[in-house]
């Protein structure tokens, strides 16, 4: 074990700080675009304006962002170093500087392309995706096939050099603004279950695509339904082999962003809750002085830290080429329930002020914690339900008997971002 902040790391930290001071000024920070009511949606929490892009390019140049991505595809191609990663994340967070984009493109498509994409696909998509110039949406879920991807019905029939796609996708966030969609489609309808599924990149400007907004419980429409009607997709947009779509879509799981992502998100929300508890008066004293809230705050901070260090452990196992086994299977369930608990605590800190809705100017943090709270529940649902996670942990992790009725391998609904 070696995480020590030895002199070279202290030096690295100073270097990062100096970089931030120079490249992310108070003015940059203050120039945040107006609050986007959809700002809390999955993966769009991070600024993506021109200043941010300029900053990110500089940060990539210096090796601070997208360290696992080769330079030829727009990453900074740095050796695996969780400590540097931690320092970068810490310092960027303190400076409120734009970090890696965590939308579905950078988090899900890029790792997939790195592993399964053709050289042409990599060149064409990765760099622009990392900078947010190409926006992606994910076309996995279908009505009636939530966690049960085996029942996927969208078809892609080969017609010369094209697939002709017909079907109906749901829970497609950002489909209205996305340039491209990565989708799972059924290319071989006669093959059983997963075997007939392929992974396809679909240009959202293609004729035959209709996007309809889908309002979620927060009242905003951060999702969409996407109807595909004879959409023609070149066969060169197939990622991996035909019929291997299920395997291709799961390669994401092996990549570091996903391993650390959820801990990071909970950390950020927890920072917010702590700040809230310090700032907000509750019955005559700052809420953080309330012994019950205080104890819960420490407890959740402990779990957030456990989540972070657990990420380090997984990364290390990966770097050593060892199978993380059950340790790799619990991450999502731990992270999503923790995310819910953290957001839930915010509601208790707010007490009656939790009644004020997002956008209410007199509300603490403009009522955004309610949105975070609802989203934390949505994420719990979206990442394949918790029950399916538990099946996976029990069966694959603990070796308990499989339930013959439930195809829980398909259950890992990869929708997230």
């Amino acid at each position, binding site marked *: 074990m070696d995480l020590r902040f030895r002199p070279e790391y202290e030096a690295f930290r100073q270097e990062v700080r100096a970089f931030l001071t120079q490249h992310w000024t108070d003015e940059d920070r203050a120039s945040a675009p107006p609050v986007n009511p959809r700002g809390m949606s999955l993966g769009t929490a991070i600024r993506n304006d021109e200043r941010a892009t300029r900053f990110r390019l500089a940060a990539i140049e210096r090796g601070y962002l997208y360290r696992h991505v080769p330079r030829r595809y727009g990453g900074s191609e740095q050796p695996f170093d969780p400590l540097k990663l931690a320092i970068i994340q810490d310092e960027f967070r303190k400076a409120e500087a734009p970090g890696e984009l965590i939308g579905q493109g950078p988090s899900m498509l890029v790792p997939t392309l790195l592993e399964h994409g053709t050289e042409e696909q990599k060149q064409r998509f990765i760099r622009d995706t990392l900078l947010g110039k190409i926006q992606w949406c994910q076309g996995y*879920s279908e009505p009636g096939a*939530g*966690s*049960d991807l*085996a029942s996927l019905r969208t078809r892609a029939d080969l017609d010369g050099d094209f697939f002709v796609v017909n079907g109906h996708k*749901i*829970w497609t966030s950002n489909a209205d603004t996305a340039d491209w969609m990565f989708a799972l489609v059924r290319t071989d309808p006669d093959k059983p279950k997963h075997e007939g599924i392929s992974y396809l990149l679909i240009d959202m400007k293609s004729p035959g695509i209709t996007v309809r907004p*889908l*309002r*979620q*419980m*927060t*009242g905003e*429409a951060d999702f969409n339904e996407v109807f595909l009607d004879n959409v023609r997709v070149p066969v060169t947009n197939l990622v991996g082999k035909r019929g291997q779509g299920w395997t291709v879509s799961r390669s994401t799981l092996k990549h570091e962003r996903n391993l650390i992502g959820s801990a990071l998100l909970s950390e950020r929300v927890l920072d917010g809750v702590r700040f809230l508890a310090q700032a907000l*008066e*509750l*019955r*005559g004293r700052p809420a953080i002085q*309330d012994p*019950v809230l205080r104890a819960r705050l420490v407890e959740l901070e402990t779990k957030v830290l456990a989540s972070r260090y657990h990420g380090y452990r997984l990364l290390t196992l990966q770097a050593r080429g060892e199978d993380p086994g059950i340790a790799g299977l619990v991450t999502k369930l731990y992270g999503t329930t923790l995310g819910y608990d953290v957001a839930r605590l915010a*509601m*208790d800190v*707010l*007490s*009656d*002020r*939790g*009644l*004020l*809705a*997002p*956008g*209410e100017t*007199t*509300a603490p943090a403009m*009522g955004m914690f*309610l949105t975070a709270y*609802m989203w934390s*529940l*949505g994420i*719990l*649902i*979206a990442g394949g*339900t*918790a*029950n399916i996670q*538990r099946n996976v942990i029990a069966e694959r992790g603990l070796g308990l008997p499989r339930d013959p*009725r*439930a*195809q829980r391998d398909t259950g890992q609904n990869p929708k997230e971002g």
Partner: protein
Amino acid sequence: MDFGLSADQLLFQQTLRRFLAEQCPMTRVRAIMETETAHDLALWQGLCGLGVPGLIVPAEHGGGGLELLDLALAAEELGYACTPGPFLGHALATICVIEGASEEQRGHWLPTMAEGTSIGTVAWGEAGSQWNPEHWATFYEGGTLSGEKLFVPFANVADVLLVGARNAEGSVRLYRVEREAPGITITPLAVVDMTRKVQHVRFERTPATPLEGPPSGLQRAIDAGCILVAADAFGGSRRCLEMAVSYAKTREQFGQVIGAFQAVKHQLANMACELEPALSLWWYAAHAYDHIRDQCERHAAMVKAHLTDLYDRMTRDATELHGGIGFTWEFDLHLWFRRAIFDRGFLGDAHYHRERAARLAGW
């Protein structure tokens, strides 16, 4: 000699449930909540026709002459049906008058409140989550009120506000204010529960009438509020469980209804296991309000804390159980999710009431 509802109560419950199912189905709920006030006159008049606003008002003042339990049964049904409108604040306002006004004042004010032509609400909570009257800063002096009250339900709809404020002697008492009185500023707020809007109300030398009955009236009304909120929370919880069970029986996944999976069955069983005894708990508290007064205040504090915590868990679990559809706006579940947030915050949070129950026990 029993612990159950009377035939009259069961009939009333049925009648009200049928009325709401017919007159205020979810399409209607959504239409009303999208209006600026979330108050629909026809619906309110329908409720008035059933005697709901005056249930607990003594018969000699034009009410039903019933007990808090009867009123709480109405609250339960309104919670079950997710009914929008000013019921809760109005009920508390009538109780302020019943318990805190002089006989003469009662005679003046109650009849129109009982028939629902004069709508009331209560202005209690203050900044910093202060629902404890001992810490209220709003004061009464020279016939007028000054101060700021937060989370006043339907202040923009009510005709009269029953306000808790400190008098020159430093005691906290109830005051009656007309909504159209000078010096009132009502700030509209964006709120989570769209079926029960709240506003902030500022008083600046607003003419007010002191209630001249027993000073205990305020605490009685607060106790009643805790119990009515608990009943609302129970009704909503029951509805969430019903929806989740019904969904589990119809939604198929992996070739069978999801309710056949043991994990889902057990989650629903846990919900039912928490729900059932909670019913008897608020029944008892409501009964104690009229019949075992020395137990009422502490029970009211306990049921407020317990039932609203329960409601929170029930809405959360039901939402999770529904999966994606539970997260959509079009599906109705989130409307109860939002009501649960109202019930938790209004009158103070669960922790406040537990601490109060501890103090009332002399700990």
